């Protein structure tokens, strides 16, 4: 190597950094993100697992109690009916929330036309997703209000009502879910609108020549091409359903009589509200919720991994 003899390449021996930058550069670029993420996301997950084995009020000494928090949850020694009600409501949320996907597809099909002003219509239909869930919650609380809610006004026209959706322990969860479906449907709609834009027109024409129409066309020709949009819609809807917290907190505070709690809300109640600072018990609830989510997370990662390999 006699690079020094070359007149214009003025670096005689390349420094350590220049020789190894291809190996080290990625770690340099990753370092801040990994540090932040590890500190605030990865470690706390393990800390919560650990904490769920303790009894701790957030201030004093933590006492190791093994799996007793989980036993308390399983047998509901502490709050009667709280855990299983929350679990049941979580399942209702999960199932009902998925309605956002067909509803979003339906609206997307409805709006997938070219008439004047359709762009504005699409944006306005998407509107609910941009608004914070806190405001959505308030809006729907008033919508349902037994005294002046527009729902009861409409029901009154057809001689029904008045109903108090949020005051009835059998309807309250569905009432909140409907409020949640509003922005979520808008999200699924925009995913499908983008997907429909990219549907191959030649395949549609070919389908038409073969006599496919309406439902059959949708099912056999269009939906297979919308698969990536459907996948994302599933991911965001399932995660959204299990994360439901804001709406419950704003609309009912878990009531009436705790009948609209879900695990996410129950955990918050146990650890940070007037129910007292039972951090270990709260962490155990969080671990259960995490375990449920992990099933879905693993499935999503596995699907992504298959895509990467292709």
């Amino acid at each position, binding site marked *: 190597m006699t690079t020094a003899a070359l007149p214009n390449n003025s670096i005689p021996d390349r420094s350590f950094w220049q020789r190894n930058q*291809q190996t080290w*550069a*990625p770690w340099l*670029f990753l370092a*801040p*993100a990994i540090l*932040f*993420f590890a500190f*605030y996301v*990865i*470690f706390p*997950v393990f800390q*919560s697992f650990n904490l769920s084995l303790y009894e701790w009020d957030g201030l004093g000494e933590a006492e190791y109690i093994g799996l007793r928090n989980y036993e308390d949850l399983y047998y509901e020694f502490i709050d009667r009916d709280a855990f299983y009600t929350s679990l049941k409501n979580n399942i209702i949320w999960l199932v009902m929330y998925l309605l956002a996907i067909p509803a979003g597809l339906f609206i997307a*099909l409805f709006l*997938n*036309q*070219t*008439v004047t002003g359709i762009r504005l*219509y699409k*944006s*306005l239909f998407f*509107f*609910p997703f*941009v*608004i*914070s869930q*806190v*405001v959505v919650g*308030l809006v729907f609380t*008033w*919508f349902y209000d037994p005294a*002046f809610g*527009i729902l009861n*006004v409409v029901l009154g026209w057809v001689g029904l009502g008045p109903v108090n959706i949020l005051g009835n322990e059998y309807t309250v969860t569905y009432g909140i879910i409907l409020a949640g479906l509003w922005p979520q449907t808008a999200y699924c709609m*925009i*995913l*499908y609108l*983008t*997907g429909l*834009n990219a*549907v191959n027109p030649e395949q549609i024409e070919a389908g038409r020549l073969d006599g496919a129409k309406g439902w059959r066309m*949708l099912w056999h020709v269009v939906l297979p091409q919308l698969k*990536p*949009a459907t996948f994302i819609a599933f991911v965001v809807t399932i995660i959204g359903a*299990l*994360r439901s*917290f*804001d709406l419950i907190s*704003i609309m009912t505070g878990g009531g009436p009589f705790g009948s609209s709690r879900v695990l*996410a809300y129950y*955990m*918050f109640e146990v650890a*940070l509200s007037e129910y007292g600072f039972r951090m270990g018990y*709260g*962490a155990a609830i*969080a671990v259960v919720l*995490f375990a449920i989510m992990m099933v879905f*997370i693993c499935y999503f*990662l596995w699907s992504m991994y298959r895509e*990467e390999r292709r």
Partner: protein
Amino acid sequence: MFPTPLEKRPPSARITYQTFLPLALIMWLLPLIAVAVFSIKPGADFTNANYWGMPSSFDFFENYGQVFFNSDMPRYLLNSFLITVPTVIGAVALSAMAGFALGVYKFKANIWIFFMFVAGNFVPFQILMVPVRDLTLDLGLYNTKTGLVLFHIAFQTGFCTLFMRNFIKALPYELIEAARVEGISEIRIFWYVVLPLMKPALAALAVLIFTFIWNDYFWAVVLTQGPESQPVTAGITAFNSQFRAMYHLMSAGSIVAALPPVAMFFLMQKHFIAGLTLGAVK
């Protein structure tokens, strides 16, 4: 195009569609329209149980004036901005670098680090709640905007890195190789070659994160209390107890709180939708 375009249908179908479209929109936005109507009614209408009749007077300026000059709302709005803007800058900066590293270099741990970011992004908030609150207390940042910003940056980095990495992976790799042959250092490649190409992704992420953070409620409740640091989502509950049962003011407050992300969406619509629907098309 599916469904069949209206131009290829009989004119009657077109007329039905064009009359039905605005009706459907009004139904869809009915709860919001109701709140908008409430927010311009005078308070007297509510005490007289005139909920849905014509407003007895047009009180737009009175009601919104109350919100802006007679409550903590401006304070909460300012807090929201001071939390949201630094978070957007921080999360986009960190994830641009991380996305570059994961999208350009081939090394063994690459896919696992990527999956760590993706998985972390889906984790339920509650499993982070107690440790993050403790960490923030220990750092002396409880009930400060900084405490909230640091956490938001860290958490949003997960989603942003997923986004950036996929975007960079789709860029032509030959560009980077050509730069390397020229002897340009990796850091300069990032800054002068890749970053300019990433502008659409940076814009899309910035708008998305702005909306997500502005609308965050859970962490605002967990990490802050009181008007000196709470953002508007958490502040609105305090606002509503200040104006209990005064629906005209509560409606006006809700609209003010919801407005900034809505404005952001309408101004940056293209980027916003590009960000949300990334991956929805092959």
